[in-house]
């Protein structure tokens, strides 16, 4: 399987080529090259998946392959950083997800970004992102993962700030970068601690479940929590930053300033699930050596899911609604992982989480691309500038509806199957947790249909031009993703991805399924009553909960809290004294050296007149003096 190396090398080459030619080629050429490369990568990824899943389980258990491994930086016999490609069920699954969504976004952007300034730059960055994300999923060791982790952070920063002349975009890109970078600091500390005590970076060794690997940490604890828990919690903070878990979720809604296809690729389908992938990748370590942290992940996940679902009900910018819904769905995945056990039926949560990751990537990319198509038609993100668009955008309308049904968890769409597995896993872990999840699923259905009705039904907004359906290159990805969304639920996912590699037969828990479908149906019905036709119900509800509503519209004032903490506390109490120390003491010392030297030289500089004749005179006199001394003494 040496050819898997091409999956990484091709996008990197595309990035270098497109980045170097910049605008010397026609925009169309650059776009075609980027898309073609991504197409080849997608085919390679599908081929990898096909050959892996058909041949790699001789004994009913999937094997791991490392088709490529090289020692990149060797510091000592034990400390060396490798680069390699790890092929196992989840990495293959992620290869398929990333390459599919990336290919769809490449095709879609050919028309969506047409005529934008910096079209080549856009495709170069997309290639860079694809390269980094693919490198992240196939990483063989945690340090390689960290390298690509940072690379996706950079490409996300570059793409959010693509419209760099817009101040909001610049601010959003900085915000995303700083927050994820801050979280990555903890990730890095976690990696260092982990490798210090285990003497390895390798996932293979770490995930072996072998307690001797972690023998170095035995008995060590800090502030009442065992060292292993600390390490894994630190690593999870990195994942929480990338996956926008509370309280580090604030960058994701702002990241919607980037071009919409970018939001679909990076901030919905692939990069934001990197945190989920990280936890899944290190799942055996979490499960066997830090179970408390794993449970903590479940609680953080469910809190984030609830929190952002509530906010999503009040937002009016359609991309922001989708952003909060993304955060909420990632919370679902985290819950799935957090409640999971190891192997067989206990591993249901893990399987469900990966399944949801897969289906969510497809239908959320579809939602974002659909939103892009709407924005393309009406040139606005605001819901009140839309309404009644179903007549003008029939294809977008149908595909968007399919995605909404999927995310709401209505059978037979894919979201139903994956969400249902998470729900039943959560119920087995803790019934209260499961009930809360069902409630959140209901909220999801509610706000998604609020969005759907707000865009396609309700009162028609008077447009200056009649909105027109998007071109074919934008509709094809929509149709493709819609088809995937319709049929992906029937994939026997348990056959492919489980945490012990063994086959698991998915069966639908009828009670959970019927309850969750009923809740979703009720939520959709409420949404239909409130938003399908223009009426006063929603206004009345808002005015009766006006205080609460105001808090939610302002996203629980989390952004303001951050600003308060950074500006009022960190800047004033920490940064200002440090700045004073630097400016007065450090600078002062150096400056006083300079001042003394300068003063001395000013005092004695009169001697140096620069007049050669004077020098010669002094020279002559001294010579005579010395001669006289020699002669007469």
């Amino acid at each position, binding site marked *: 399987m040496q050819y898997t190396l091409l999956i990484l090398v091709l996008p990197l080459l595309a990035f270098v080529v497109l980045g170097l030619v910049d605008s010397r080629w026609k925009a169309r050429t650059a776009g075609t090259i980027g898309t073609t490369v991504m197409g080849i990568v997608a085919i390679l990824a599908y081929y990898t998946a096909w050959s892996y899943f058909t041949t790699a389980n001789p004994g009913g258990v999937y094997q791991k392959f490392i088709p490529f491994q090289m020692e990149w930086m060797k510091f000592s016999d034990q400390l060396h950083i490798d680069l390699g490609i790890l092929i196992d069920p989840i990495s293959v699954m992620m290869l398929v997800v990333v390459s599919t969504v990336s290919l769809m976004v490449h095709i879609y952007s050919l028309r969506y970004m047409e005529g934008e300034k910096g079209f080549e730059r856009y495709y170069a960055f997309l290639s860079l992102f694809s390269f980094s994300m693919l490198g992240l999923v196939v990483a063989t060791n945690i340090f390689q993962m960290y390298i690509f982790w940072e690379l996706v952070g950079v490409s996300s920063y570059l793409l959010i700030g693509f419209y760099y002349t817009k101040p909001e975009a610049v601010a959003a890109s900085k915000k995303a970068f700083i927050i994820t970078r801050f979280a990555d600091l903890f990730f890095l500390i976690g990696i260092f601690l982990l490798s210090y005590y285990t003497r390895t970076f390798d996932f293979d060794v770490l995930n072996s479940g072998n307690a001797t690997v972690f023998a170095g940490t035995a008995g060590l604890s800090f502030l009442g929590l065992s060292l292993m828990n600390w390490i894994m919690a630190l690593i999870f903070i990195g994942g929480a930053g990338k996956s926008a878990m509370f309280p580090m979720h604030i960058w994701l809604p702002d990241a919607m300033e980037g071009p919409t296809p970018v939001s679909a690729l990076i901030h919905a389908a692939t990069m934001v699930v990197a945190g989920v992938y990280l936890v899944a990748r290190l799942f055996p370590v979490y499960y066997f050596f830090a179970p408390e942290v794993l449970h903590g992940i479940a609680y953080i996940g469910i809190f984030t899911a609830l929190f952002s679902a509530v906010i999503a009900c009040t937002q009016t910018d359609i991309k922001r609604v989708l952003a909060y819904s993304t955060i909420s769905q990632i919370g679902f995945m985290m819950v799935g992982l957090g409640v999971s056990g190891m192997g067989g039926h206990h591993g249901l949560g893990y399987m469900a989480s990966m399944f949801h990751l897969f289906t969510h990537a497809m239908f959320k990319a579809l939602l974002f691309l659909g939103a892009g198509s709407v924005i393309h038609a009406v040139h606005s993100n605001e819901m009140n500038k839309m309404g009644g668009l179903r007549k003008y955008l029939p294809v977008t309308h149908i595909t968007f509806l399919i995605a909404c049904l999927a995310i709401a968890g209505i059978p037979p769409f894919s979201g139903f199957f994956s969400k249902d597995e998470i729900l039943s896993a959560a119920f087995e872990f803790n019934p209260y947790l499961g009930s809360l999840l069902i409630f959140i699923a209901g909220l999801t259905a509610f706000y998604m249909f609020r969005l759907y009705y707000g865009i396609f039904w309700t009162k028609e907004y008077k447009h200056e031009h009649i909105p027109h359906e998007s071109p074919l290159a934008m509709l094809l990805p929509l149709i493709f993703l819609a088809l995937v969304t319709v049929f992906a639920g029937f994939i026997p996912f348990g056959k492919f991805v489980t945490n012990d590699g063994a086959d698991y037969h998915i069966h639908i828990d009828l009670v959970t399924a019927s309850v969750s479908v009923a809740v979703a149906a009720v939520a959709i019905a409420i949404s239909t009553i409130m938003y399908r036709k223009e009426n006063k119900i929603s206004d009345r509800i808002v005015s009766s909960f006006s205080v609460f509503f105001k808090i939610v519209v302002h996203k629980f004032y989390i952004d303001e809290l951050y600003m308060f903490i950074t500006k009022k506390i960190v800047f004033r109490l920490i940064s200002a004294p440090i700045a004073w120390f630097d400016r007065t003491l450090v600078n002062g010392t150096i400056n006083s050296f300079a001042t003394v030297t*300068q003063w001395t030289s000013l005092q004695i500089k009169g001697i*140096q007149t*620069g*007049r050669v004749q004077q020098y*010669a005179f002094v020279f002559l006199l001294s010579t005579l003096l010395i001669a006289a001394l020699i002669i007469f003494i």
Partner: protein
Amino acid sequence: MGEFFSKLFSGTIPLEAYIVVSLIMFFSGIYGFLSRKSLLMILISIELILNSIDINFAVFNRYLYPGNMEGFFFALFTIAISACETAVAIAIVINIYRNLNNVEVDSMTELREPSANETEIKEVNE
């Protein structure tokens, strides 16, 4: 002294006579170098100094090591080198004249302008 004059008038010029001439030339050169303000005059003074040295070379060779040629050759070398030096110096003087419209040494203060210098240092500090 009597011996000196008798030698002088008897047709053989004594060594000291040459040295006196060379000494007068040398110190005239030194005086000119120190006192003159024009670059050209300074240059001429340097030539005087060099020529006095040439005389010394030739005379000492003639009187102390008759039959050897080293002193004469050195004199020739010195002449050649002083010619080169003059050529370079004249080129510099011409360039200075083009820039400053005079060749007075006192007017060449470009590199030490005290006032401009001090303000610049202050600016850097602030």
